[in-house]
């Protein structure tokens, strides 16, 4: 077991890898597939050339959508902007400050000038640039960079990168869960290796994947999923090694009442299997490109209602009837196998849940969280953390009130977070001018031994206790 850490093979991009493209603050998750055209930031290219290169390499886009590794030490921000004016008193806005025409720029492009070089040309040919304040120069360069630079960096996916990607590109798909709020959830729920964690989410699998990353393939995660099948696109994007998936279990919440009542029969054919079969598709879906996921309107469980209406009852010519019969049998056989798989999975998940000894609970969905929380809390051991995310504070107030009524939890806390990014530049340091409006709300707490005598439990929590009680330790 000689760990050669800096073995480059661990850090080499391979065919089939799930990777993340980055340009500036913009990310996109894709899978490396041969000859597959990828569209990113309004440009298309092929990732074939990335195979064999190291992760975190920055590529230039050459003509024909070919990626070329950028020479090292070509620092990103070297555009020469020396000699900034201190204010803009002398700038006349006459629209004639740029000497290069649009045609000139096109010519430069055809000559094969790189983005960086074109921007330098634009600066050199601007009569007002040197009189602009540094602030204005900065804005100018940024604008031009966006227009003319064509580089892309290929990153290994991580919770950090995917959370930022989803938040930036498709916040609607992850219930507007901001990355810093996700960070809080993972910590507040004490997610770590060798524990048993329940996850209920409709965040495209991002939350589930983040939990799995933190568990590192040790322990077990049970995805409690609504509707037809579990959504996993986000999990795929993490590109976990195969054995991680052995730690992942799934349980459809439509069996939750039966499980709680002890009437769930996992030995027989799943009574609702027909309904759920179509969801296999969702699981097999390996499309890492989150853009194609269609959670927006038709949510997975809604979609599942429409499929599987089959060819039964349609008229088939007699000659083909036999073949049709065979095909049908094969299909039925396949279906049976799948159902058996499904049954086993359900049984496995059910047996994990039956002990009611899970170590953590994470909820982040577009569902009203209160009933979900109340149902799933039952499966936690005492003295274990849980955390519920909602985009709306009102939902968590409801959860809080219900928990206070019912008892069985302590340390309840309703929170949200401010996230500020800073521009740190010589003489130009300030918070970034654009800011996320909100990152959603969290309710976190700790389970304790359940108890029916409510008044006692609530008695002390209501009274404002001193911040720290003196405690003396004595031996004997």
């Amino acid at each position, binding site marked *: 077991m000689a760990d050669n850490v800096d073995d480059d093979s661990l850090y080499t991009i391979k065919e089939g890898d799930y990777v993340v493209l980055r340009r500036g603050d913009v990310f996109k998750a894709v899978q490396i597939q041969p000859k597959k055209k990828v569209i990113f930031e309004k440009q298309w290219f092929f990732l074939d050339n990335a195979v064999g290169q190291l992760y975190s390499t920055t590529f230039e886009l050459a003509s024909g959508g070919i990626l070329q590794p950028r020479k090292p030490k070509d620092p990103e921000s070297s555009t020469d902007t020396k000699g900034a004016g201190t204010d803009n008193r002398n700038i006349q806005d006459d629209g004639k400050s740029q000497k290069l025409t649009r045609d000139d720029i096109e010519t430069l492009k055809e000559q094969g000038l790189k983005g960086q070089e074109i921007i330098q040309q634009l600066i050199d040919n601007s009569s007002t640039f040197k009189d602009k304040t540094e602030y204005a120069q900065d804005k100018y360069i940024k604008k031009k960079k966006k227009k003319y630079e064509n580089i892309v960096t290929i990153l290994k996916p991580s919770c950090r990168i995917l959370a930022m990607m989803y938040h930036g590109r498709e916040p609607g798909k992850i219930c507007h869960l901001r990355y810093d709020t996700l960070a809080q959830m993972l910590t507040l729920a004490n997610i770590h290796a060798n524990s048993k964690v329940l996850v209920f989410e409709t965040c495209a699998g991002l939350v589930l994947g983040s939990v799995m990353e933190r568990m590192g393939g040790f322990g077990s995660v049970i995805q409690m999923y609504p509707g037809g099948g579990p959504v996993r696109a986000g999990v795929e994007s993490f590109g976990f090694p195969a*054995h991680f998936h052995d730690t992942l279990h799934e349980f459809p919440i439509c069996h939750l009442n039966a499980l709680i009542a002890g009437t769930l029969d996992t030995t027989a054919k799943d009574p609702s299997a027909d309904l759920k079969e179509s969801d296999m598709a969702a699981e097999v879906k390996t499309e890492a490109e989150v853009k194609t996921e269609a959670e927006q309107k038709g949510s997975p469980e809604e979609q599942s209602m429409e499929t599987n209406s089959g060819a039964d009852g349609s008229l088939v010519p007699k000659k083909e009837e036999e073949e049709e019969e065979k095909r049908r049998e094969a299909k039925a056989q396949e279906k049976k196998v799948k159902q058996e798989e499904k049954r086993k999975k359900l049984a496995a998940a059910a047996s994990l849940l039956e002990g009611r000894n899970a170590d953590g609970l994470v909820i982040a969905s577009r569902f009203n969280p209160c009933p979900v929380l109340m149902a799933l809390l039952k499966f936690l*051991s005492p003295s274990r953390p849980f955390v519920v995310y909602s985009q709306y504070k009102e939902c968590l107030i409801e959860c809080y009130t219900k928990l206070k009524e019912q008892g069985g939890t302590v340390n309840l806390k*309703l929170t949200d977070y401010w996230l500020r990014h800073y521009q740190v530049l010589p003489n130009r340091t300030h918070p970034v001018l654009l800011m996320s409006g909100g990152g959603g709300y969290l309710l976190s707490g700790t389970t304790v031994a359940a108890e029916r005598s409510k008044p006692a439990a609530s008695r002390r929590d209501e009274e404002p206790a001193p911040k720290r009680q003196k405690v003396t330790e004595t031996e*004997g």
Partner: protein
Amino acid sequence: MSFVEYSDCIQDGDVAIVYLGHESMTPVKVKRGAQTQTRYGVIRHSTDLIGQRYGSKVTCSKGGWVYVLHPTPELWTVNLPHRTQILYTTDIATITMMLELKPGSVVCESEPQLLKLHIIVSVSPVFILPVCVCVSGTGSGSLSHAILRTIAPTGHLHTVEFHQQRSEKVLEEFKEHRVDHLVTVRNQDACKDGFGVTGVADAVFLDIPSPWEAVKHAKAAMKKHGGRVCSFSPCIEQVQKTCEAFSDQGFEEINSIEVLLRVHDVRTVYLPLPDFGPDPSVQIQPDSTITPPQNHASIAVKTTIPPRDVQGHTGYLTFATKPRT
């Protein structure tokens, strides 16, 4: 009990958190025969704690009761003895994600005490990205516990603390919390002497007054293929110098942020309704002469209120990526 693995029952030698009420907790070292005095009376460890399930209710001698909780890094953060300013959960959570911490195999062969861990990793060592973290400024160990929780069972933490008394105290705590096998504490000055390791760290965290002086050591401690680094500083001038140092040392993706916790206290408030007097447009029945305005009518509203004063600033977090070198 360990800070990196749950147990069901309280055992002799455990550290348990006694929950006394809202925002009132205290850590207790469980010891057969010992007693702990609380405002609700005495807790007798042998009978009241040992063998009990974590999370259960313990009735104290005066008849009052408490809950006994399993320790977690987050409960520790609000209960630990302060030897320095500490990092709180909001910053810790952000640091953990932004440094991309997770369980991982240990790579640093110069650390003999870690060899035994390879057995755990052997499930599929090829796929596990090695994680090793260096921290300068161990302080009271608030962040350290959270890091250890996240990188266990297969990561390793190298932590540097220049104050000898503190470095000894924190090591003692790591032992009590059964995480000492995952951590190496060094009593040295990171700015002068670095981290004591080279080319092994996936992540470095700096919580020292002059982080910019430790940036080159951070770089040296990190793996050839790169990694993430974070510096925590209360003052903007420190951030400016640190960003410059990161940039000078070739770090990329330099990004300074600030995360602030906002707490919402759930309350039911009663708002009085105004009395506009009798409404002449409403015909008063001649037989019911008394229609007094509901002078003290009010409505109940379920709402949240912020605490009057909140923590308005802890520090700036500056993150950067060390590229392949």
